[in-house]
């Protein structure tokens, strides 16, 4: 019995350490645009904001650039991939890292205001719009 308890204890401790390490490296905090810009270099964060009208630039090879604003500050976002519901002036969450004055988004979640409201009540939290 004692041996078993020790074994279980060791397994749980090893597991706990692995869990904590993975958690720490894969944690993706929610931050504001102002925070990102003031830091200058941030990796693996989620930023909430609004796509600023008139700032969109579509580059070849499915690359998109736009400004994201939190009302105070703006930052330039670059994203490679398809965004089928893209629209200026709507709220968006971008996930990725900020460096060299650009936010490199791995993922862009677009939220049309009305859609968002109903989405909340609905079953799906998945957006068809942006993926890694």
């Amino acid at each position, binding site marked *: *019995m004692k041996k*078993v308890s020790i074994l*279980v204890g060791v*397994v*749980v401790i090893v*597991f706990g350490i*692995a*869990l904590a390490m*993975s*958690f720490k490296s*894969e*944690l*993706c*905090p*929610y931050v504001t645009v102002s925070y990102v810009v003031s830091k200058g270099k941030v990796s*693996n964060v*989620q930023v909430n904001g609004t796509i600023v009208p008139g700032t969109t630039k579509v580059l070849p*090879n*499915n690359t998109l650039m736009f400004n994201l604003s939190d009302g105070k500050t703006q930052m330039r976002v670059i994203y*490679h*991939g*398809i*965004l*089928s*519901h893209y629209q200026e002036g709507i709220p968006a969450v971008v996930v990725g890292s900020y460096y060299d004055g650009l936010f490199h988004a791995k993922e862009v979640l677009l939220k*049309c205001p*009305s*859609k968002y409201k*109903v*989405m*909340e*009540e*609905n*079953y*799906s*939290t*998945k957006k*068809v719009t942006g*993926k890694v």
Partner: protein
Amino acid sequence: MDVGYLFLLASMFSLIVSIILDFEFIRGKKCWKEIKYANLSFLVFTALSFFTLLYYFLIRDFNVKYVFLYSDTHLPLVYTISAVWAGREGSLLLWLLYLGIFILISTRKRDRISAFANAIMCVVAVFFNFLLLTSSNPFVRLNFNPPEGWGLNPLLRTPEMALHPPAIFLGYAGMTVPFAYAVAATYYREEWIERARNYLLVAWAFLGVGILLGAWWAYKTLGWGGYWGWDPVENSSLLPWLTASALLHGVLVEERRGGLKLINYILAVVTFDLVILATFITRSGIINSVHAFARNQEAYAYLLLIGLASFVAFVVAVKRKDVFRGEAHGIRNRLIQATILIFSLATVTVLIGTLTPLLMRASVTKEFYRHIEIPLGTALVVLLGICVVAIKRDFSQRVLRSLALGAGAGIVCFGLTRLALASLGVGIFVFSLSGIIQGYSGRKIDLRKAGAIAAHLGLILLFIGVMGSWMYESSYTHINLGVGQSVKVGDYTLKLNGFNEVNGNGKFYVIAYVSVYRDGKLIGVMHPKLVIYNLMRSDRIVASVDIISMPFQDIYIAMGSVTESGIASFEFYIVPLVSFVWIGSLLIVAGGILAALPEKRERAGKSIKAAKAGATGVEYAEGETGTV
């Protein structure tokens, strides 16, 4: 006041009567029949309320806010019916309806344990009924008559999403039964497993069906080439499934050896808590919008129910700690304990990841789950290969034989493919398969064993499928094609032949025709679509994917958008072994259902138990009035 609401009130009244009668019965009053009538009345009124809501959907009474939000005049009949459970209010009503059925059929023995369990389940029902009467009332009316509904979310208009909530909620409601019996029977120092086992199996199987439907839907609908995104909503239904899986294994030890009683008790309670947590997460939108937590009054109600259930279970456990004595020895029981440990660790991991957005201003990425769950899943499959042979003689020899076979298969696979991880996976697969074959061959196979074989074969197929599809998926997400153009992606060549535009009932399709060639040979023409629904909603454009399934890989295409000049952007995925995921999951579910089927042996066992119980002075009676 709406008639549906009145039915809910009557259902609430029946519940309260039933609870009072339960305690009268426990005190010695002969009122079993009355309890049954109260339960029946609760079920009938809940069903009437449910059908009233359904009726409003069918006559398209958009004056009812819930009907307005989830349907429109173009919605086909099938999806109009499924819209009843598309939102929070209707789902809770469905939960309550299922609970009514479970309460009626699960209290068959006329004794105080049944009465106490009946009371516990009725208290849970009171909770949901209370929510339906207050903050989640589905019968709220608007102060005007909209001519058209807001419309069901187009993403939910698939057979999978129509059936997913009924399956999931059946599983959720069913988990109330093991919880209630664990607490009630432990309180009277009796066994609970025999009474609850089949409900546990059925609930577990339906939870599995629901999860599978959700994964299949995500794969077919969301267009990212995957089926499991470790999304909080997906996770929340996986949590009780994991603990229930652990409980199913613990129950084996308790039935045969009388050990693990405390662990099983805890697992039954935690599974119920997780079911309530899951209902809360999926139906409150809490994870989507972190800030809603304070504003959502229901959040506290759910936490209160979880707290109350855990508290009552805790008090009963402390008062009756002598019941949990007894320990199971032997290598097989140790291995089953290890299985339970793995399931528990998997649960803790998913729980931490799921609750992170609620507890701190952050969330975890998919990689967090994969780093932890892949090793745990692998350990589980290896353990399975050892565990099923553990009751046989020559145990270590048999394990060595499996090991040799597994190593051989791994080496052959590496020689052929040069993929190290894939070869390791194949080796583990063969090791466990050999274990299952050796473990079950030559034994008498009854329905329970057949169920176990199916579920375990399912698990190893799921393992190989998940490994193939997660580690070796190829994705090509930046494909732009004009009509007549072609592009080479991996081993395949895609050619856009053209578009077609089709007008449907309340929607409009843009269909692309893409020919797929391999080595110059045409494999098929794929039809990814954009579906534009004629709705007020702004999320009315949905990409519809097309999949060609082959035995060992799927090719998968989604159309992102089409420009006015006729250039479409596509995402193309090659997903290996994904069919193993579906077959494996189906086998797991089928195993649960097989094991729950009634068997002759069980009836014989029951009469022996009854005779034993008669000797100890506990009252048992078979065949109650009017129940199944």
